[in-house]
């Protein structure tokens, strides 16, 4: 069935005229019809427009049009602006808001013929690790509907895992692409900070955000990265570095590759399933020719605190624009402008967003700025130095993506701090501006996916894609689909 194919398999079939775009889109829509009521991965689907665009793509292909993604449907996290489509960011405060412009990354995909089929669910304003913070209901993990899909890009990961999409986009500020990919058995890539333009990505934390693909294979992630990446004059933080050929970096062995294991990450007390799967992955890499060394990241312990000071601080300013004046939800019955802001934001924002805005406002406030925000930025530099030192002795670092597999819906939502601790392996990568890839590496005893994280230096996407690809090809974990796996080893 066409919806179960990877992006590359679809492109191949389209290229050989074995199917049409309209067929692919229809297959995806059928799967959505079948499964999404139970999963709730999508917030909106524009079936008619997608089919019309697919038919146009088929015609264009006959006339020789060559777009690298011509007629391929993609699912987009509801935080990225796609002109003419809703962009709620999982929040009531943007209910009814329609994006007036394309994000740069979206424009580049569109230029290659991609079709934006639907908007996926997310934690409100990307703040969360389980998609339980969405104002539009939870998304369920396709592997077990009692469990969370991860977050904040839980919708994108769920629809890819359930073959309700060929591929999807998410955004990653502290792990929001990698962790849901890990919980749902998909591939998730967070590029180097500045590799993909942030113009059109509704900002959560400006110095940490990146757009990332969530896909069924490493090769698919490399292609989407290739199309989206590159400097953008509309984003002053985008890098001028030239783009390599990411596909050319994919090899099936790891000869000459040195992989580092941070001693601080493997201190015991790790969830046994996670430990088992990651250890097996490390062994597999050895068999592929990699050398394994120990490295040290001394400031691992401080990373969560640092992240949960810096991200909310930047978010507290980024979310100030949501005041009901120019767009989005506007509360009724306000007596003056400030009253309007108070009512609109009180009614429009969910509890986790409010929590982080208040936290962020506090750490920036007079008398506390030095002790919290300034100090956190300094520790951030130390974290970055840790990685720079580690990468002197290895090409990439291996770690779990998350300390546990997916947990039950509702299990952590009562204790935000407990939820935050789940980000321990992913936030350092954002803090240091590095690149990180999540690839499936096994299942828990409860048949829930577990992900392996490959972390590379800044602009080290070629290395981590190579490592992820070789591992993926040798082990085949990514080929599994929900409903086919019995617990434990497979």
């Amino acid at each position, binding site marked *: 069935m066409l919806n179960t194919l990877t992006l590359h398999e679809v492109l191949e079939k389209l290229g050989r005229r074995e199917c049409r775009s309209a067929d692919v889109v229809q297959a995806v829509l059928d799967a959505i019809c079948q499964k999404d009521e139970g999963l709730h991965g999508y917030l909106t689907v524009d079936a008619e427009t997608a089919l019309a665009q697919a038919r146009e793509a088929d015609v264009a292909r006959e006339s020789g049009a060559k777009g690298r993604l011509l007629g391929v449907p993609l699912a987009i996290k509801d935080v990225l602006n796609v002109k003419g489509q809703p962009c709620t960011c999982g929040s009531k405060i943007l209910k009814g808001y329609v*994006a007036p412009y394309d994000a740069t990354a979206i424009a580049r995909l569109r230029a290659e013929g991609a079709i934006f089929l639907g908007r996926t669910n997310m934690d409100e304003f990307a703040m969360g690790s389980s998609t339980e913070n969405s104002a539009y209901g939870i998304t369920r993990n396709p592997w077990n509907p009692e469990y969370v899909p991860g977050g904040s890009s839980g919708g994108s990961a769920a629809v890819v895992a359930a073959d309700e999409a060929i591929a999807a986009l998410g955004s990653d500020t502290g792990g929001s692409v990698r962790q849901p990919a890990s919980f749902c058995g998909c591939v998730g890539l967070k590029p180097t900070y500045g590799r993909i333009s942030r113009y059109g990505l509704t900002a959560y934390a400006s110095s940490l955000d990146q757009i990332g693909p969530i896909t069924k294979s490493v090769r698919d992630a490399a292609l989407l990265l290739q199309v989206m990446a590159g400097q953008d004059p509309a984003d002053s*933080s985008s890098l001028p570095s030239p783009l390599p050929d990411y596909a050319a970096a994919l090899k099936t062995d790891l000869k000459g590759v040195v992989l580092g294991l941070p001693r601080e990450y493997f201190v015991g007390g790790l969830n046994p399933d996670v430990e088992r799967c990651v250890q097996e992955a490390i062994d597999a890499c050895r068999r592929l020719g990699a050398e394994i060394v120990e490295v040290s990241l001394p400031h691992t312990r401080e990373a969560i605190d640092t992240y949960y000071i810096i991200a909310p601080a930047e978010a507290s300013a980024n979310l100030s624009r949501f005041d009901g004046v120019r767009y989005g939800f506007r509360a009724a019955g306000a007596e003056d402008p400030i009253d309007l802001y108070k009512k609109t934001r009180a009614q429009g924002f969910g509890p986790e967003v409010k929590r982080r805005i208040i936290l962020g406002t506090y750490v920036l406030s007079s008398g506390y700025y030095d002790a919290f925000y300034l100090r956190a930025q300094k520790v951030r530099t130390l974290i970055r130095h840790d990685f720079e030192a580690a990468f002197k002795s290895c090409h990439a670092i291996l770690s779990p993506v998350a300390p546990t597999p997916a947990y039950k819906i509702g299990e952590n939502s009562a204790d935000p701090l407990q939820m935050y601790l789940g980000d321990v392996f992913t936030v350092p990568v954002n803090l240091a501006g590095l690149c990180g890839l999540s690839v499936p590496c096994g299942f828990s005893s409860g048949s829930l996916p577990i992900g392996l994280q490959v972390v590379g230096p800044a602009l080290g996407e070629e290395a981590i894609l190579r490592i992820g690809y070789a591992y993926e090809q040798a082990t085949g974990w990514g080929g599994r689909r929900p409903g086919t796996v019995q617990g434990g080893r497979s």
Partner: protein
Amino acid sequence: MTTYRVTIGLEVHVQLKTKSKMFCACSTDFGAPPNTHVCPVCLGYPGSLPVMNREAIRLNVISGLMLGCRINPYSKFDRKNYFYPDMPKNYQISQYDKPLCLGGGVDIEIEGKARRIGITRIHQEEDVAKNLHYATWSGIDYNRAGVPLMEIVSEPDMETPEEAFAYLQALRQILVYAGVSDCNLEEGNMRCDVNVSIRPEGQKELGTKAEIKNMNTFKGVFNALEYEIARQIEVVEAGGRIIQETRRWDADLGQTFSMRTKEDAHDYRYFPEPDLMPVALSEALIAEWAATLPELPAQRRERFVRDYGLPEYDAKVLAAEKAVGDYFESAARSTSNPKAVSNWVMTDVLRTLSEKSISITEFTIPPDALAELIELTESKVINSNTAREVFALMLTDGGRAKAIVTARGLAQVSDSAAIEKIVDQAIAENAKSVEDFRKGKAAALKFLVGQVMRLSKGKANPQMVSELMERKLSN
């Protein structure tokens, strides 16, 4: 009776003359219909990002160089956080601890005495939107949101409203000369906030200061200061204390009113703007910009005296406004007598501008046309009375001086034979005056010359008439 010393500091906001806004490509043109020069960036839409306008940075640095500042080789932008209807993002991108320029000053002259008023810093930020209030609703026009705004903070060096007024005029003059802004208060190009405190004579420690906002003219600043100083003295004399607060100047009522006190003051929670890279200016780049600095007003005054041989008074009047000086120079270069140009500009041109309430840029006689008129006078084709006539015709009917003189036959008569005829006629018709002159009444000569001018319909060359008349009468 206690005398009080006054301390005044001024914060001046100047809109820079760039084509586009500080962080997006929208036009900065004034007067467009509301919300027509807007985009996702200056409207603060989700996902939008600022991009620095390099020309604004250059103009800011040029201003700093013109004002004698040190340019910071490394400066950055910060977010200034507060909620208000004229704020699209509810934070303003500004500069906090690392502004573009530090130090510098402005020379002023009060009653012949020169003083230098120091400048603390100059930084770059973005302007806010404009709130417009109607009977039952208010509207926000975002055309102004994001326009590049340069903030110049003076040292608290001024001590009287006169000094504040002089500082503003001198500052404006320099900025217009620099070409960085039109400094047109009516269009809101230049705005001013005032900080003022008093202390008893002899006390070293400064008194509590009040901040005053909402003065729309330089005179308004002067009046507000006069009022506020008197108010503060009154409070203190009555045994009260000055509260540190922000007050609003009401020009209609002629009073300041309290807006908010220190307790309500904003905590702006400044932090470095993560969406913009720091501004690192190399010495080479600063030197390149320094080499393009336009002349300062004082330099232009000196040059007018030196190169055109003008008296200091003329130089001062002509250099006061850059556009007037430009006009003068353009005309002077096309004539043989710069002083004549100066006279014409200082009197006839400036008077016309005043009568019509227009600026020199709206003046309908271009400099080269004025030069042409003056040259006709210099070469004695017409006399000065005729010249004024022609000037008036050029204003009402348009056209060039030469053409008008030819068309209306206004060229003065310098043919001695023709003049002699009219002189003889005047002598013949005014025997009494001739008698008076021979009796010693010098005024009679003037009268007779006047008669010749009348008979010749003003066209006779007055100098020739005078010489010839004198000769004839002396015979």
